[in-house]
C-alpha cells in the first residue's frame, strides 16, 4: 500500500473537521473523495500533505509515518498537493511557477525534460510561458497548478477540486490528463464536488459526511448506490 491513513482526527480550534477518517491508496491507484461542502474532503488532503496536523491517527506513506512532518518535508517524499483554488504564484511567470514545483530537485537535465513534458501535456502553457500567472484564465491557472505539482515527480498526486469554476471543455481536458498521469504510474487522490466525473475517473471512492466516511467501495459500485445517486449525482 502506497498510502494508508488510519483513523485521523483534525480540529480547527474547537471544531472537529475530521472525526476518524481511514483510507488507502495503492501503487498507481486512483481514489476519489466525494461529499458535500464541509464534509472534510479538503481537510483530509491537507492532513496528508502536512498543511494541517491530525490530533490523533496515523498516516503512513511508503512505510514511513508522516503525520507529524511539515509540508515541505512531505513533498520531498513524493506527495504533491494541488490545493483548492489553484493557489498559483500570481506575480511569477508560468515557467517560474513550474520550476518552483521542482524546488526540491537538483537534477537540472531531468528538470528540463519534465518542463518539456508539462508543456506537451498543456501546449497552452508553452504559448504563455513568460506571462505572469495573474494574466491567465482559471483553466490555464489550473493547468499551471497541476503542472507545478508534476514537476516534483510525485508518486502520489492530491487534487482538490480541479474542476471548480471551469468550462466543461476545460474540465474534460484536465480529466483526460489526470487519467494519463495515472496510467504512467502516479497514484491520484481526487477531491471533487462533481461526483459523477470523479467516480467515472477513479477506481475506488470514499463518500465523506461531516468528518466521517459514510460509504466506500469500487467507484462503479458507488455510482449504482441509491444513497450516492440521490445525494450526490442528483438522479
Amino acid at each position: 500500500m502506497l498510502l494508508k491513513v488510519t483513523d485521523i482526527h483534525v480540529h480547527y480550534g474547537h471544531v472537529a473537521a475530521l472525526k476518524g477518517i481511514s483510507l488507502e491508496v495503492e501503487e498507481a491507484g486512483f481514489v476519489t473523495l466525494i461529499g458535500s461542502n464541509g464534509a472534510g474532503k479538503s481537510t483530509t488532503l491537507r492532513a496528508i500533505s502536512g498543511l494541517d496536523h491530525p490530533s490523533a491517527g496515523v498516516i503512513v506513506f511508503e512505510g514511513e509515518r508522516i503525520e507529524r512532518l511539515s509540508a515541505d518535508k512531505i513533498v520531498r517524499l513524493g506527495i504533491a498537493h494541488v490545493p483548492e483554488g489553484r493557489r498559483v504564484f500570481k506575480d511569477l511567470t508560468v515557467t517560474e511557477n513550474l520550476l518552483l514545483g521542482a524546488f526540491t530537485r537538483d537534477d537540472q537535465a531531468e528538470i528540463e525534460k519534465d518542463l518539456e513534458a508539462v508543456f506537451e501535456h498543456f501546449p497552452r502553457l508553452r504559448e504563455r510561458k513568460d506571462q505572469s500567472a495573474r494574466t491567465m484564465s482559471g483553466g490555464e491557472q489550473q493547468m499551471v497548478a497541476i503542472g507545478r505539482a508534476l514537476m516534483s515527480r510525485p508518486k502520489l498526486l492530491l487534487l482538490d477540486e480541479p474542476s471548480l469554476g471551469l468550462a466543461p471543455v476545460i474540465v474534460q481536458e484536465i480529466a483526460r490528463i489526470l487519467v494519463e498521469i495515472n496510467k504512467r504510474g502516479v497514484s491520484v487522490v481526487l477531491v471533487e464536488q462533481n461526483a459523477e466525473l470523479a467516480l467515472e475517473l477513479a477506481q475506488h471512492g470514499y463518500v465523506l459526511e461531516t468528518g466521517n466516511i459514510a460509504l466506500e467501495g469500487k467507484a462503479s459500485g458507488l455510482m449504482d448506490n441509491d444513497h450516492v445517486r440521490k445525494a450526490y449525482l442528483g438522479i
Partner: protein
Amino acid sequence: MELILQFIINGLIQGGFFALFAVGLVLIFGVMSVVNFAHGELVMIGAYTIWLLHAQNGFGFIPAIFVAVMLVTIIGLLMERFLFRPTRDDPLAGLICSIGVLFILQVVATLVGGDGPSKQVPPPFHGTLVLFDFLRIPYQRIFSLVVSVGALSLLWYFLTRTKLGWALRAVALDREAAALQGININRISMIAIGVGGALAGLAGALMAPLTNINPHMGHNVIITAFIVTIVGGVGSLSGAVLAAVLYALFHTFVTVYFGGTVATICGLILMVVVLIVKPTGIMGVRVSE
C-alpha cells in the same frame, strides 16, 4: 535650471538610502508578515559601527562597512530565530517584539556612545566632482550612490533570476502554496531578514559620514520607510524603490525651501492621502481578486 539639476542629483543619492532600508522593510513584511519597527534602529547600529570603528578607532572605512553589514545581518537573524519565528502565528506579537528591540538597541547605542551631542564621522572620501562648472557632487555621495545602486541591482538579480529568489517571492505571495513546493519557510524567513538586515546595515554605514549619528536617528528612518512603503504599495519591491526616489526628490525640494521638518510633515500627509485615496499605493496590487 542649475538648481533643479542639483536637486535631482541630491534627491537621487538620498533616494538610494531610502530604497535600501525601505526594500528591507518590504521584504521582511512580505515574507514574515511582521512590521519590523526596529528597522530604523538597524540602520542606526550600522551608522554607529562606522563611528566606533572608523571614526574612533581608525579602522578603514570599507572594512568597517563590511563589519556593519555583518553585525546588523546577525542582529536580524537573531530577531528572526528568537522573536519572529516563535510568534509567527500572531503578527501583533511580532510587531510588539520589534518595538522592544527598538528600545533595546537605542539603549545599547547610548551605552556605547554616551548620550552627549550627536556624533559626526569625517567623510573618508575628500573632494567634490564639479560638472559643467555648476554641478557639485562630493565624492562621498557618489560613492554612496554607486554602492546603493549596486546593492539594489544585486537584490533585483537575486529575486528575479535565481530559484531561491523566486522561492522568496513565492513565500511572500502564498506561504502555504510555497510550503507545498517543498520550500522551507524558516529558511526563507532567515534569508529575507538577513537580506533586509544587510541592506539596513549598509544604509546606516553609507549614511554615517553624511548625517548626525545619535541613538534616536532610527526614528526618521522608520518614518521615511513607512512613507515610502505605503506610497509605493505595501508588498511591492519595485514600488518601494520608485517611491523612494520620488519621495527623496520631493523631500530634498521641500527641505531646501521650507526645512526638513516641514518636508517630513508633507511626506506624512502624502502617506495619509495615499492611504485614503489609493491604499494599494502606486505599484501595489489589490489583495482580493
